[in-house]
């Protein structure tokens, strides 16, 4: 596949043929990647050029030189006996759960159900060769870390979603570097549920492409008791809202049926 030079791209993933000592610059959302093939080496430089989590630029420039690599870019080198010419770029989901914080906490009454749409940043998986030898994953936007648990002693390190969850799909910003996940929250317990933070166990989800948008499966978090735990159910295939979709990446972890996860949590006081 040949990359058109200086033309806006609609998608950035796919397979590309690289010639010797050829350097290409990809701008994918907030991140810039310089990928260079040498006879016995692949060299990748990565730099987050923007702090805007919703940066939606996608571009490719094949006319750059080594001097154009940002001085603060982090360089990764991979040596080969004979460097493969084929380059693979693939979107993948985050390797840790993502925590979503509604703008204002809201209550889900006993017996009620609510659907939230959340967007999470994707990573660029760089691979080379016919067998797609994976070199490294780079975030299109590196989200902040956050702690999800009952205290500062027990919990789990997660990513914080830098965009807020929305109750209506139309309200989500249009950005091609983020995957949309519909989350159904069912409160089957006898008490109301205060939604301050919701953990999306994204490592159990697959990634789909529908038109130029990225989607994951719909998940259902059913709260049975008056606790912070919920039963996780993952619907098969892309969500109905996505329409016809193609699967791009498999989940990192296989979820057992009716897996119970800690999904809800109060905010910390911070002290």
């Amino acid at each position, binding site marked *: 596949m040949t990359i058109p030079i200086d033309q806006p791209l609609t998608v950035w993933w796919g397979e590309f043929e690289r010639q010797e000592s050829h350097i290409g610059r990809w701008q994918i959302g907030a991140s810039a990647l310089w990928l260079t093939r040498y006879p016995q080496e692949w060299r990748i430089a990565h730099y987050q050029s923007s702090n805007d989590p919703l940066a939606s630029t996608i571009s490719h420039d094949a006319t750059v030189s080594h001097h154009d690599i940002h001085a603060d870019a982090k360089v990764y080198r991979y040596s080969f006996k004979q460097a493969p010419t084929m380059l693979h770029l693939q979107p993948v989901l985050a390797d840790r759960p993502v925590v979503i914080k509604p703008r204002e906490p809201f209550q889900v009454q006993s017996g009620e159900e609510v659907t939230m749409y959340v967007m999470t940043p994707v990573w660029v998986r760089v691979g080379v060769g016919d067998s797609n030898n994976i070199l490294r994953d780079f975030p299109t936007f590196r*989200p*902040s870390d*956050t702690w999800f648990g009952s205290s500062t002693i027990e919990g789990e390190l997660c990513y914080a979603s830098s965009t807020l969850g929305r109750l209506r799909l139309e309200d989500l910003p249009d950005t091609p570097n983020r995957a949309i996940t519909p989350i159904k929250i069912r409160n089957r317990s006898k008490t109301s549920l205060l939604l301050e933070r919701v953990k999306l166990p994204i490592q159990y989800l697959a990634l789909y492409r529908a038109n130029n948008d990225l989607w994951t499966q719909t998940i259902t978090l059913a709260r049975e008791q008056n606790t912070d735990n919920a039963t996780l159910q993952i619907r098969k295939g892309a969500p109905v809202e996505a329409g016809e979709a193609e699967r791009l990446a498999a989940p990192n972890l296989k979820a057992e049926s009716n897996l119970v996860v800690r999904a809800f949590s109060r905010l910390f006081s911070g002290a």
Partner: protein
Amino acid sequence: MINSMQQWLDAIDFTNLVGGISLAAFIRAALLVIIGFVLARLARLAIMRGFGKALTPQQRLLFRRLVSYTIFLLFLISALRELGFNFGVLLGAAGIVTLAIGFASQTSVSNLISGLFLVMERSVEVGDVIKIGGTTGEVLSIDLLSTKLRTFDNLLVRIPNETMVKSEITNFNRFPIRRVDTMIGVAYNEDLQRVKDTLLHVAESNPLCLNDPSPQIIAQGFGESSVDLQFSVWGTTENYLDLRNSIQQGIKEAFSDGGIEIPFPYRNLYMDESSSPLPVRIVDSGLHTNKID
């Protein structure tokens, strides 16, 4: 092979006796000690490989020592029996010997017992970074008598277990997250709300800084030259140093960009006759002196 070797040794009639012990018995005893030593080493290696990931470094160390010492001790006892030692007599004498040794090695026994308490309490484990007294370092091992630390300038510090039990110890990586506190002084003429917003933006744009527990700004008081603030952010324990460095760099850059002044200490000097101006003298190239009143 051992059996055939023993038969061979038994078949030879050694006449060289030391206190009624034949040379064959000596050789058998030596062989037992060597075999015991080799087996203990093999057991240590097997534990390292077999339980390398299943156990914590602390448990691995204890398990390894327990198994290897037990194996070696059993072979040593067998070797002594070969040499004709009577353990009944030895046990009878043990009471007197223990008393004598006890008086002679009070410190060692105290350290030994402290070491056992230290291991049972589990407040410190191998691999932890701790501070004890004025020493900060990584725990390399908790031995019978002492605990060994490696300081960050790569020195070995040996701390007697008794001191470990008696002293206050701070364990830096027991919990997965920790707080980074930065003290900041801003000029009195700065808008404090703008300063707070700038600091929160610094925390928000640093990916190592945790969103929750959320960053906090605590007013510490009015200093001599500045309003003193404490800026507290949370990060993972493993990223502590990176976060501490990057957050301070971020604050400096954000303050420079936003024109927020971190003041130097001010000093106002008053003379006795404060109303009258101080005489100033300008020296021109060291040749002419002009006096201005």
